[in-house]
């Protein structure tokens, strides 16, 4: 009886973890290894694979669109992340004050864009950002801020800004929530003490709040880095990566090369580089956060 139970105690954990590992091997590990293999071949997905050595990588590193996709992601990152963290922190501290009314509602209102379908939100933005008859331009023109319509989706920089606006819109609430948890760990006494010592609200925001949520800000930055380099749906629906590939992202390029042009070999070399990039960011993230804990 007991030996049977003991035996169970030994094998049970393996059985429990086996579904995960089987699925992980079949649908993650094997594909990523296979991906590395494909990246050394020339393959259209159905015919024969021909080994081509490093040819795909040589082509990739010489492909200006690949570098452009990384540059675009970095630009989009710079456009929205600092602003998002700044606004997120301000809104978080507002909602965190104990005299704030309607916290739950505001928190939810800011968070809603995060879980509403990206495809749906992207299409709404397509309507809103339309140059000739979009709402944004109509309103801006009517209140006299602009004379000529802004080419939201038709000039490279505006297109990047549009994507950044949409990403900001979707992720502000989420980051605000994370920052709120960071704020909740700060003792209220600190603020009271600062106040008594004559510090203004603004001063205490810069000298107490920001230093104490530094770690959380860093964490949000890392998440946003991963998120920005993996952007797909927003540029795919808003601009199809254009104009002049100004909103092409690595994942969008991977998608086009694989499932539209059927260059599976070349696409795989993009996939491998993307994998290495993501892994590096994750490793940095782990380093940073393990040290401090």
């Amino acid at each position, binding site marked *: 009886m007991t030996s049977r139970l003991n035996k169970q105690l030994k094998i049970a954990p393996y059985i429990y973890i086996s579904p995960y590992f089987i699925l992980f091997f079949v649908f993650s590990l094997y594909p990523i290894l296979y991906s590395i293999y494909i990246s050394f071949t020339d393959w*259209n*997905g*159905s015919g024969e694979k021909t080994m081509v050595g490093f040819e795909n990588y040589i082509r990739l590193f010489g492909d200006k669109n690949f570098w452009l996709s990384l540059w675009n992601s970095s630009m989009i990152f710079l456009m929205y992340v600092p602003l998002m963290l700044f606004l997120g922190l301000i809104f978080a501290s507002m909602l965190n004050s104990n005299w704030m009314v309607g916290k739950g509602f505001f928190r939810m209102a800011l968070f809603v864009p995060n879980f509403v379908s990206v495809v749906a939100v992207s299409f709404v933005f397509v309507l809103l950002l*339309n*140059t*000739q*008859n979009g709402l944004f331009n109509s309103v801006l023109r009517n209140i006299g801020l602009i004379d000529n319509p802004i*080419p939201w989706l*038709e*000039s*490279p920089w505006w297109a990047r800004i549009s994507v950044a606006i949409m990403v900001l819109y979707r992720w502000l609430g989420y980051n605000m929530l994370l920052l709120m948890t960071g704020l909740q760990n700060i003792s209220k006494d600190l603020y009271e003490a600062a106040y008594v010592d004559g510090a203004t609200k603004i001063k205490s925001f810069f000298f107490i709040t920001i230093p104490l949520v530094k770690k959380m800000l860093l964490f949000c930055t890392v998440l946003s880095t991963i998120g920005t380099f993996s952007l797909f749906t927003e540029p795919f629906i808003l601009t199809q990566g*254009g*104009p*002049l*590939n100004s909103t092409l992202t690595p994942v969008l390029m991977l998608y086009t090369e694989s*499932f*539209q042009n*059927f260059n599976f070999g070349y696409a795989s070399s993009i996939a491998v580089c993307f994998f290495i990039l993501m892994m590096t960011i994750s490793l940095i993230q782990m380093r940073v956060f393990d040290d401090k804990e």
Partner: protein
Amino acid sequence: MGKKRIIYVLVACLMISLLATACSSNENKNTAAGQTESGKKVKLVVWTWETAKDGLDLNMEAFKAKYPNIEVEFQNMKSTDLYSKYLITSNTGDAVPDIITVESTNLAQIVQIDSLLDITDKVAPYKEKMSPYKWEDATKDGKTYAMPWDSGPVVMFYRNDLFAQAGLPTDPVEVAQKIQTWDDYYQAAKLVKEKTGAFMYGDSKTNSSNRVFESMMWQRGLWYFDDQGKVAVDSPEVKEVAEYLIKMQKENLVFDARANTDQWGNGIRDGQIATVVGGSWHDAIIENQYSPSDNGKWSVAMMPKWSKDDKYSGANQGGSNMAINKNSKHPEEAWQFIEFMLGSEENQVKMMSEAGLFPAMMIDNNPAIDEPSTYFNNQAIRKVYAESLANTYPLAYTSDFPMANKLMTDVWAKVFLNNASPEQALKDMADELRSKTKRE
């Protein structure tokens, strides 16, 4: 406890749904097997898009009456989505769809991937009946893979009221006299702009569909590639055409919106666009979609030529074909469908008269050609189409057309956004095209 109940409901739904999928997939297999064995009802899946389906719908009743055993399911999608999805299909060897609609622009590309059924024997009786240029893109190594449907003979649609205000003639014959060359067109554009404030045509600076550009090339027998398949976009003739269009844009004579988008359509609706130089199928778009209330305001004339002595004055824009999936389980029925829709003059004429699809089939003697169109000022607009078609240079789109078209869009964007010189931009494009297509 409300939440608990919701969880139970969710779980219950899950159970039912799992059962449902299990059952339904069995069911599908059974019925599919049953169909082929008993030969009772065959279901054809046709991938197409809205405007094309509107044409087919006109003949569906008659088709159902003739072939009661064939059930047809249409799946509408964006044509570019259709092609990329069909590429995946061919890659996975799927039996669905049975039939696809393919624009001539993309036909050669799809034929290249060897996933269409060889229908050389089936189309043999129709070889002489269709406009010859249509077979170019449908053929690879002497075998034919698609049946021509419609053509898009390019003509110039113009607004009578705007032309009148600008002091231009409005009668189609006089217009054709007045605007014979592209230079005449440019002069007219300046008048229209000055007198009415309207733009001569619509095209985007940064996201151009290149349609006017391609029509201008086509009528001169120029293309992205020359007749030996070499890249030709950096030739002086092509540059000349590009520079003409850049001049039009720079002098602000062009409504800045990609052709056939909603923004462009609004320009048509609001009377901001004076002409549409485009395929005949634009008549339905103008009449039904964007400008239904402007009855009598539009007329049709031949499009301008580069120089008065040019032999060809027409061009083609788009036009579609139908092809059968190599892996279709019902190739015979699929051909019956295609032959019924596209092989009969009567049905083609119906699609022409009621859905604006000008047939690739040559029907010059059919009385429907001379029918006046109420919307277009009682003009016999199809006569103009027929004339354009008869004067069209026999050119093929070629398999690398989609890529060239996309790169061309970037050429304009570089010129207008980055102030690149047209010469350099075209040169860069030619180089990129050479390296990507491995052409000379």
